[in-house]
């Protein structure tokens, strides 16, 4: 028993959870008793004896798992055990439940964990649609309903879309740049393990008195500052998700800047790398703002500060400014990695270089810069300083330009190509182009202030966000999962099931979210547990399409699980791609490369006779001279 507690692992993590929780609880009780305060403060917003343990217990859990071991020993001056990475690779399913510093293991941990949260958030969506299928109250009462859409969005945003991209990139990117691992493998492991904490905290809010947090994922003050205990779980969950995200972004930035294989100049990087570089720049600068906003709400709730209490000099609208200063870049955090994935998939499956590669990379940087200048388009009707609206409209309209450049460039990539539709990955990438264009169009409309005045906070917005987040981000996530599935698992998925998943998802997505534009414009607000009878017809159709969409995802899960276990073995490069991750075995060797490859050309040199992107170690004997940049390809 003591041995189990001495070694990092799940028993010690349980011990850490309990001790950490007890410590936090004891600290609050002791301090309150000493100060003469009522020990258990159970006013709706307070509960400090729950909020503090909700911080210390997860930290104890992380300690128990072993996330901090090396650093604690180093800080204590004890001899550190150099990490010989002997634990790299996963031989059994158990290895995925440990602290592992192998980026490939971490990548799989991320993808599987985030998809679990996708399924939970998806079930919430099914409940929401079941309730909204008809006017009136059928299945859940308004309080539960408000909790459902709030937790649905929080799960999808913070513990699915944002981290699943981090996970895919975690797996693929070091291989793609010819690196043996990420720059900070231990930090990488910690980043991952902070993620389930966030999801669990969000879900734990259902058990709180007063129910799950129900002020929306946006949590506007003062509705959030005055809400019951569940809201504090949202405030805290965001911190863990944010810390995970920031640490990963730092890792990517250092890895990309310092660990590219010799010869991989910036202009020879695959666009997935450019996309993750751009996303990481967004994450590190913007995420602290939502952390701050949620801390300010938490402090108003538990510590009786008055950031957002107007009766005591606070400023209600400032919450929205701080929140959206992150949350607008956040939507690009949720899309840019997907843009990178689409570039990889389309160039490979259409056997053509990406059209306008350099402008594609510059467009990513343009989106990064502009995304910090548009946040108040979420606040056109918020009652903010009126003069700010028009400049924000102009920047918002301008950000459509680099996005449009990317759409046109992908279309240009299909021009005179050899297009293969045999992979579900390509189907999702092509469907993404159409669906995301529609989502972008509704976004431009929302950027036009007079239109926004009418449709703000209606189902038109719900339509827009789901077109860009589901038809945009999630389609690219599926494209990436199907594309890299053989590389990650060493097996091929079932293409027929993939196609069923694709068509069910496409029909479900359009059937669910297109009519939402119309009912929004006609007068149905968002975040409502009930609606005027005139919207009953479309809501019923939307719900049915939504159930089709949900059912299609079950086919995907079945395909992934059974193919991972029983699928036919895949070779190193089933798609005959050029980038480095496809030049090693599937799955890759435990330490990626026996010898770091040398990059001699661009990553998409299809159709150029003799062009090479990278020369792998076992071929170096055949290629005596390093090829100069510029042979047969613009670099």
């Amino acid at each position, binding site marked *: 028993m003591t041995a189990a507690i001495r070694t990092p692992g799940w028993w010690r993590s349980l011990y850490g959870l309990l001790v950490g929780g007890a410590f936090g609880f004891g600290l609050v009780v002791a301090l309150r008793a000493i100060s003469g305060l009522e020990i258990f403060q159970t006013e*709706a917003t*307070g509960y400090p004896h729950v909020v503090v343990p909700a911080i210390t217990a997860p930290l104890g859990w992380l300690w128990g798992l072993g996330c901090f071991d090396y650093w604690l020993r180093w800080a204590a001056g004890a001899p550190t055990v150099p990490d010989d990475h002997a634990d790299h690779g996963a031989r059994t399913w158990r290895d995925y439940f440990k602290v592992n510093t192998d980026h490939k293991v971490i990548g799989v941990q991320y993808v599987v964990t985030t998809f679990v949260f996708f399924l939970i958030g998806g079930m919430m969506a099914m409940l929401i649609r079941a309730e909204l299928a008809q006017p009136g109250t059928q299945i859940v009462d*308004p309080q539960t309903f*408000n909790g459902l859409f709030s937790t649905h969005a929080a799960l999808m945003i913070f513990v699915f879309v944002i981290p699943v991209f981090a996970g895919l990139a975690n797996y693929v990117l070091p291989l793609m740049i010819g690196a043996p691992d990420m720059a900070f493998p231990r930090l990488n492991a910690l980043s991952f393990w902070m993620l389930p904490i966030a999801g669990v905290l969000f879900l734990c809010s259902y058990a709180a008195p007063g129910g799950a947090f*129900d002020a929306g994922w946006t949590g*506007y003050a003062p*509705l959030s500052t005055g809400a019951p205990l569940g809201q504090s779980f949202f405030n805290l969950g965001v911190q863990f998700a944010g810390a995970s995200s920031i640490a990963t972004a730092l890792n990517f930035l250092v890895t990309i800047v310092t660990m590219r294989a010799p010869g991989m100049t910036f202009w020879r990087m695959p666009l997935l790398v450019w996309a993750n570089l751009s996303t990481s720049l967004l994450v590190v600068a913007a995420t602290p703002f939502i952390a701050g906003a949620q801390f300010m709400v938490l402090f*108003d709730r538990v510590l009786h500060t008055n950031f*957002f209490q*107007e*009766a*005591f000099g606070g400023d209600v*609208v400032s919450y929205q400014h701080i929140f959206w200063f992150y949350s607008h870049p956040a939507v690009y955090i949720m899309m840019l990695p997907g843009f990178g994935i689409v570039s990889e998939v389309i160039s490979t499956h259409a*056997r*053509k*270089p990406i*059209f306008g590669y350099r*402008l594609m990379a510059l467009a990513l940087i343009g989106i990064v810069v502009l995304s910090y200048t548009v946040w108040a388009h979420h606040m056109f*009707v*918020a*009652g903010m*300083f009126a003069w700010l*609206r*028009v400049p924000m409209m102009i920047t918002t*309209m*301008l950000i459509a*330009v680099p996005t*449009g*450049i990317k759409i*046109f460039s992908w*279309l*240009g990539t*299909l*021009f*005179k190509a*050899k*297009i293969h539709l045999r992979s579900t990955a390509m189907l999702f990438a092509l469907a993404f182009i*159409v669906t995301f264009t529609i989502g972008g*169009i509704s976004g*431009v409309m929302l950027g*036009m*202030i*007079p*239109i926004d*005045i*009418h449709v*703000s*906070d209606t189902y038109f917005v719900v339509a827009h966000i789901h077109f860009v987040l589901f038809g945009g981000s999630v389609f690219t996530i599926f494209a990436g999962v199907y594309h890299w599935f053989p590389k990650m698992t060493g097996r091929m998925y079932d293409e027929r099931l993939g196609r069923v998943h694709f068509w069910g998802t496409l029909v479900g997505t359009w059937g669910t979210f297109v009519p939402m534009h*119309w009912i929004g*414009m*006609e007068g149905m*607000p*968002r*975040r*409502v*547990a009930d609606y005027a009878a005139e919207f009953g017809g479309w809501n019923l159709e939307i719900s049915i399409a939504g159930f089709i969409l949900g059912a299609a995802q079950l086919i995907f899960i079945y395909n992934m699980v059974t193919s991972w276990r029983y699928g036919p073995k895949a070779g190193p490069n089933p798609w*005959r791609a050029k980038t480095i991750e496809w030049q090693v075995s599937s799955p890759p060797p435990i330490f990626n490369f026996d010898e770091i490859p040398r990059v001699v050309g661009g990553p998409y040199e*299809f*159709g150029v006779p003799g062009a090479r992107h990278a020369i792998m170690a076992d071929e170096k004997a055949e290629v005596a001279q390093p090829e100069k940049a510029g042979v047969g390809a*613009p670099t």
Partner: protein
Amino acid sequence: MRDVPYARLAAAMLVLTVVVSVIMLIPDWNGEQASTAADDIDTLLDVSIVASSFVFSIVMVLLGYSVWKWRARPGDESDGEPIHGNTRLEIAWTVIPTVIVVALAAYSWIVLDDIEAKEGDEQIQIEVTGQQFTWSFEYPELGIASEELHVPADQQIEVHLRALDVIHSFWVPEWRIKRDAVPGAPGADIDADFVVTPDKPGNFSLICTELCGLGHSTMRTPVVVHESEQEFRQWVSEQDPIPEEEQPAGGGPEPPSGGQPQEVESS
């Protein structure tokens, strides 16, 4: 080099633009128009729909043609043509969309100024207060208070929004105008005033469009636009006067509102 029928593709894009525009312009997406702002906003929407149809048609024609024309034949594992880009084209698809979006922004700015312009200074002043979960109305110059919003047709009203607890939002869909009711208004630099000219008599609903708690979806209040000034005056004469004990809006210390720890309705 296979010949690409550029002219035909362009023609197809144009035709599709027209077809999609015509179809998309038929429905009255925003519903009934009942204020002078509605027509301006709906026309702006229609223009954006035409621009969108143009963009959508470009994407669909190029995507559809490419996938049809350049689908790899079974067994053909060769690569496509190594086209890396076309500088002129890339400049064009940077500059032209910029021009389009800036034009839309300029037009939007014009519409915004139009719908927010005050017509003279004879607006009917109405103080609208949102609270969980109902709206209430005071007409300070007429000295009345009411639980329903009544206005005469064809007169500009100036609304001053207040909120007692959390953020609510004022929206009458047929009027198009929307604004959040923020606790703390009129102080704290909150832009809580707007104008609108309802121009169609009838019965409408004032809907709350900012999540405000449990009763958010039930927070709607009747709105009546009277056909004539006399009808409106008749209604005014039947209303209660503004209660005496009410503190002046925004003046003096107010009791803690919904943001403080307290008994919360939603638990």
